[in-house]
Structures are given as C-alpha cells and as structure tokens.
C-alpha cells in the first residue's frame, strides 16, 4: 500500500509579504531553493575553478599546494562516486578498485617495470577507456542483486583488487612460463613517469593541481549535462522505483551499468593523475580506508548534489589534513564544540547558562583537584611545537580550567585518559536518553570530560584520532542533517 508522505510545505505568511512581486504559486515553487540552487551551476563551477587555479599563484607554500592537489583528486573521486551512489542509488563498494586499476594501468604503461614509456596523450585516454570497460564488467552483478546485496558483492571486488596487487609480484600463470612480477607486490610500482605535455615534464604539485582541475571542469560539465538529460532522469527514476522505471520503458539494467561505468571513467582519470603525481602506485592507497573516506565525502556533502560532493571532499580532506598536528587539531576541537553548542542550544539564555556552567564547573574541579592531589594539575599542555595555544593566554586558561595530571611512570597520562574515555562514552550515551533540563545539566560535565580526554589522550595522537573525529562529525551531521550539507531531503516509501 502506498505510504503516507509528509504534507506539502506551507509558506509562512510573514515571508510571503516581504516579496510582493512574486505570486503565491511562485513563492511555493521557490520556497525550497537556496543560494547554491539558484546560482547556475556553470557560475559555481567557474568561481570554483578560478579560486582553485589561483592557489599556487597566491601562495608559494609547497605544503598548501600539495594539500590542494590531494583534495582535487578526492574531488574527482567523489564526483565519480556520486554518479552511481547519488544519482542511480547503487551502493557500489567496489568503486575504489577502479581508482586503483587506473593508477596501476597507468604505471604499467609508463614506468620502467616493463620498459614501456608511452606518451601521456595515449596513456590517459587508454586508462580512462580501460577503466570504463572494467566498470561495465564489475557492474554486471547489479543486474541480479540490489541494495545491501550489491554492496556485499562489490565490496568483494574492492578487496580482491588489493589482494591481487599485493600478491601480484609472484604470478605464476598456473605453472606455465615461470613466475612473473606484474604489480610489484606490497611495495608497488615506483619511478612512474610524470605527465609530459607539449614536451614539458610535469613534476610540480601545482602542475597536477591544474591538470586535475581542468579534468574536473570538463567532467563536471559533461556529467551535469548527462544528469539533465534522459539518462539522468532515468537514473533518478530507477533510484526511486526500479520496477516502475522498467515498466515506464526504461531499460533499468543497462542504465545501472552506465552509471557504474561513468563513475569508473572519472575514477580512471583520477587514477592516472594519481600515478603520475606521486610517481608511484601502492596497494594500500586503494584499500578500504580510502573508499570509506570518499563515501564520507559524498554523504557529508549530500549524495546526488554535484556542488555538495565537491564541498564534502574539500571539507573532509582539509579537515583530515588539519588534524595531523596537535596545535591545529586543538583548534578544530574547540571550535567544533563551540559551533555545535551555538547551533544546537536554544534559547540564548540556555546557551549562556551551559557555557557559564562549563567554565564554573572546570574552575571548581580544578581547584578541588589542586587542593586534594597537587600532582593532578601540574601537567603541561601537550604540544607538537610551540605556538600560543601552548604558551599563551589560551594555555593558561586551559591549565586553570582542566585537570592535567603530571605524567609519571606509575600512572601515565594515557591510562587516566583511557579510563576517562570510557566514562565519556557512558556519559554521551546517557545524554541521548535523558530529556529536558536534565540534559543541559548533564551536558556540562560531558563537555568538560570531552576536553579532558582530548587534552590528556587524543591530542597526543592527533593523526590516529583523525578517523574518530571524522566519525563523530559524520554521526552529528547525519543526526541533524541526514541529506548532507547541500543534499535534498528524500522521501522513501515503505
């Protein structure tokens, strides 16, 4: 039976009066639109391309340019994954194999491994076409299985790619013709040729930033056109209801394969750039964690929205990069907590009460611990380097507010941090079940303990804390905005 859908949005009268030029019908039509929807996508793309292209011009900082280039690779990957996942609604977990396949194919054709050094203008199209072909082959299961089952089958493709490349240095063709080293094994293929364009070797990060950006511009225009064509409509139709789509004359099986193959083509281009940019390919670059990162980008940005997934890729990769060093990670932590409070705690009086309570709570705990157990407040702020978060008013404030035990052999900080972490998880879980004013009261010690765990435990291992941080952000976003940053809320029929 058909399920109930939420009632259509009703315009509020106050907003309607502010723009007398447009009639009620027009108002209803525009009600759901945001700035990013109203701006033509071509304008958005142009602004994006200009801004990114200028990065190496504005800064000579090699690190920033490298991060921008890595981010552009992720932007490409997210754009490709969005075709299958966002538009056609196929949960394809084998996507990362396309990226890896393309990078390896490029490396085989342009390195000393086989002594092949083909020109860039031959290898790149060849790699893209080859990956599209692989896309069609790996999309075959979508004819028979769908949803979760397709995810399981395609996950296998991703895993077997890593296994094949890791073990591929002792390929024996079932005993015929001896053992061959095809993939270089766990150490991968190195000394891959850089791109050569019009006689120039592209060796710098900024060259690859521009190459990836130019490729992205072409791909974005092409995919956007496809999305607004009969093919794109058919993808969205089969995402909503494959059976109805089939009965309305849409060859569903063929279109699902097109979606996977189109995404594979984008991953193919990204893979070729990857091989040339890093001048080497390694099995671990194309393993499950990379896939999860790309999925996080698509989901966080809003599956189905091209500007959304680009934004998602930028946010996630820049965030992961910032979290590498403790000083930057510390900023992200405190700003994220504060932003979350400002966004979620209403009214303002309550926000003030929570913040005031938080400060008071910390000062009191600090005073009590300092009196009872002097060593408990004698520890320093952990620092990877010196800046004003470790030597300045901020550090002084934190030292008088938090409890930072002095690290000793009998009771190291990380042991205390581990216990506190467990208590913190228990507190967060309790937060989800209490309601009303009790929740706000409980919020104060929870936030303080979060800061305690952060300063005593997590910040010391900021690089390994990154997935944890990303996970927390995803959970919070999915709870508050399930459609992602720029996505459109979807209605599912039960």
């Amino acid at each position, binding site marked *: 039976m058909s399920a109930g859908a939420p009632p259509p949005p009703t315009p509020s009268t106050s907003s309607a009066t502010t723009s007398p030029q447009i009639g009620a019908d027009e108002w209803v039509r525009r009600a759901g639109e945001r700035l990013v929807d109203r701006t033509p996508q071509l304008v958005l793309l142009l602004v994006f391309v200009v801004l990114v292209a200028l990065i190496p011009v504005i800064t000579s900082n090699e690190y920033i340019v490298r991060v921008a280039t890595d981010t552009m690779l992720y932007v490409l990957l997210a754009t490709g994954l969005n075709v299958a996942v966002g538009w056609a609604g196929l949960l394809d977990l084998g996507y990362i194999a396309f990226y890896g396949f393309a990078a390896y194919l490029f490396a085989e054709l342009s390195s000393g491994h086989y002594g092949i050094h083909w020109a860039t203008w031959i290898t790149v199209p060849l790699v893209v076409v080859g990956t599209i072909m692989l896309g069609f082959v790996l999309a075959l299961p979508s004819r028979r299985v769908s949803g979760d089952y397709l995810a399981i089958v395609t996950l296998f493709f991703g895993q077997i790619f890593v296994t094949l490349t890791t073990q591929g240095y002792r390929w024996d063709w079932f005993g015929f013709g001896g053992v061959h080293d095809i993939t270089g094994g766990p150490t991968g293929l190195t000394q891959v040729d850089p791109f050569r364009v019009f006689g120039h070797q592209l060796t710098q990060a900024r060259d690859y930033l521009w190459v990836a950006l130019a490729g992205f511009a072409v791909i974005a225009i092409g995919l956007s056109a496809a999305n*607004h*064509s009969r093919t794109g409509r058919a993808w969205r139709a089969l995402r*909503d*209801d494959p059976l109805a789509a*089939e009965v309305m004359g*849409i060859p569903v099986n063929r279109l699902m394969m097109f979606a996977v193959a189109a995404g594979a083509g984008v991953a193919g281009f990204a893979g070729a750039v990857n091989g040339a940019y890093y001048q080497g390919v390694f099995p671990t670059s194309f393993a499950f964690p990379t896939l999860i990162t790309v999925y996080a980008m698509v989901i966080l940005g809003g599956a189905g929205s091209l500007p959304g997934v680009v934004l998602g890729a930028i946010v996630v990769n820049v965030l992961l990069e910032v979290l590498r060093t403790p000083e930057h990670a510390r900023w992200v932590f405190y700003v994220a907590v504060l932003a979350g409070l400002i966004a979620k705690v209403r009214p303002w009086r309550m926000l003030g009460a929570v913040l005031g309570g938080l400060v008071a709570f910390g000062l009191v705990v600090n005073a009590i611990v300092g009196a009872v157990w002097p060593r408990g407040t004698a520890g320093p702020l952990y620092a990877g380097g010196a800046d004003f978060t470790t030597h300045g008013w901020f550090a002084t404030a934190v030292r008088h507010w938090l409890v930072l035990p002095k690290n000793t052999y009998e009771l190291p900080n990380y042991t205390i941090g581990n216990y506190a972490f467990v208590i913190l998880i228990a507190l967060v879980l309790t937060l989800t079940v209490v309601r009303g004013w009790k929740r706000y009261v409980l919020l104060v010690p929870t936030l303080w303990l979060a800061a305690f765990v952060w300063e005593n435990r997590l910040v010391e291992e900021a690089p390994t804390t990154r997935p944890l941080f990303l996970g927390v952000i995803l959970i919070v976003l999915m709870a508050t905005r399930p459609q992602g940053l720029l996505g*459109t809320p979807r209605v599912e029929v039960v």
Partner: protein
Amino acid sequence: MSGAPLLELRKLSVSFGGLVVIDELDLHVDEREIVSVIGPNGAGKTTVFNLITGTYRPDGGEILLAGENLVGLRPHEITTRGIARTFQTLRLFLNMTVKENVMAAQYGRTRSTILESMLHFPRARREERKIHAAAEEKLAFFGERLMGYRWNQPAYSLSYANRRRLEIARAMATEPRILLLDEPAAGMNPVETHEITELIGRLRDDGGYTILVIEHDMHVVEGISDRVVALDHGVKIAEGSFEAVATDPRVVEAYLGTAATTTK
C-alpha cells in the same frame, strides 16, 4: 473495428507455487474500446496487468499486441511497443518533480546516447525540446490540476488524487496505444471519482487511447465501459455490457456468495 483486436490474450495461464492465479484466460480489446475488468479481491485482475506488461512471465498462452506476441519480452520492451500502465498502489518517482516524472517516461521514445547528451549534440537538444513539449502536453490534459508551479514540485508533495492523475500522465508520456489503468478511482472522493470517469472518456475520445481498466467502483464502470469482463479465481465468469454482467448470477455469486444469491 476492422480485423484483429489491438490486444488479445489467448489461453493465458500463470500459477504461483501450486496456486493457479490465471487459468486459460481469453480476453481481447479492440481499437478505441474501453474494457473494464471487475472481480472480487484476489480474482487475479492486477496479475493480468502484470502479465501483459511483462512483470510476470506466463506459464502458458499468448499475449498479442496487434498480432505480435509479447511473451518473453522485457517490461521496457513491451512498453516501447505501445502498452503503458498505472499502478493500483501508486508507484511514482516520488523524489523527482512532477514534470520530471512525465519526462522520464519519454525515455523509450528518444534515442540520444549519454555521450550525445554530454556533448550537447543536435539530436540530444532536439529530443530534449521534444521531451519538454510532450510532458507539458500530457500534463495539460488534466486542466489546472497539474499545471503552473506544480511542475517543479516534488511528486511526494502532491495530494492522493493528483498522484493518481500524475500516474496517468506518466503512462501517457510513454506514447502507448493501449492504456492499462489499475483502479484509477481508488481512494478518491465522489467529486474526484466523477471527474476521473469523465477523464477516462476523454482519454479515449480526445487522446485516442484504447483503454483496459480495473475498477471496483461500479458507478465508474457503468459510466465508462463499452464492455465489462468479470474475473473470479483467475477464470472469466462473465463478459458483455455492464447491465448483462452486473446481473449475471455468477457475478453476483462471486461478489456476495451463494447464500445471498438464494435469498435475493
């Protein structure tokens, strides 16, 4: 009324497990005819639609559209040959806009490939204009109901009756020769039911469609049908004009049971 019927089912049978759902059913629909299929719940009416559109494959028998056997074709191939249906349970593309729902159904009537669309080839642009025009024309068939700002609203924001109308518009956009309507008046109020009765008549008279309709509302059936076919347990128990079928003792028995027949 010249020659062979537009749609003809010959000794069509299907069973699920051991249950025979359709048993050697013969049915024909002539060009520009409106035929109603009635019968109690579970009689196999919707199954007939699923067989015709290729969703189910029959165990035996033939389905002929203008003489061509459709058995074994994929559903989208059958649709492209000229059969479109609506669903009793409403299966719109809820997250697409009203206009997009109708435009999506033009897929089988256009040819441009994904590459042509990406590169804005002349054929892709020409077809895109045609798709827009066709969608607007089909939606205009329903008067003001699906016009104006509604074009750009998601389908989930439509009322129940408008969803039924949109399903019909979407089916029309596949440019069929025969429309299969599965309970078009289900869940509608008396005014809307009256409206849909008129609409089905207009679909034939103005739209030129041949129509096979499943309907429970006997006022609708009486108002539109050239011919009525009654099914029970997958077997045709009566066929003819509405008056003849409605008074047929076997039909009354199928709906009300034997005891009712005797007391009447």
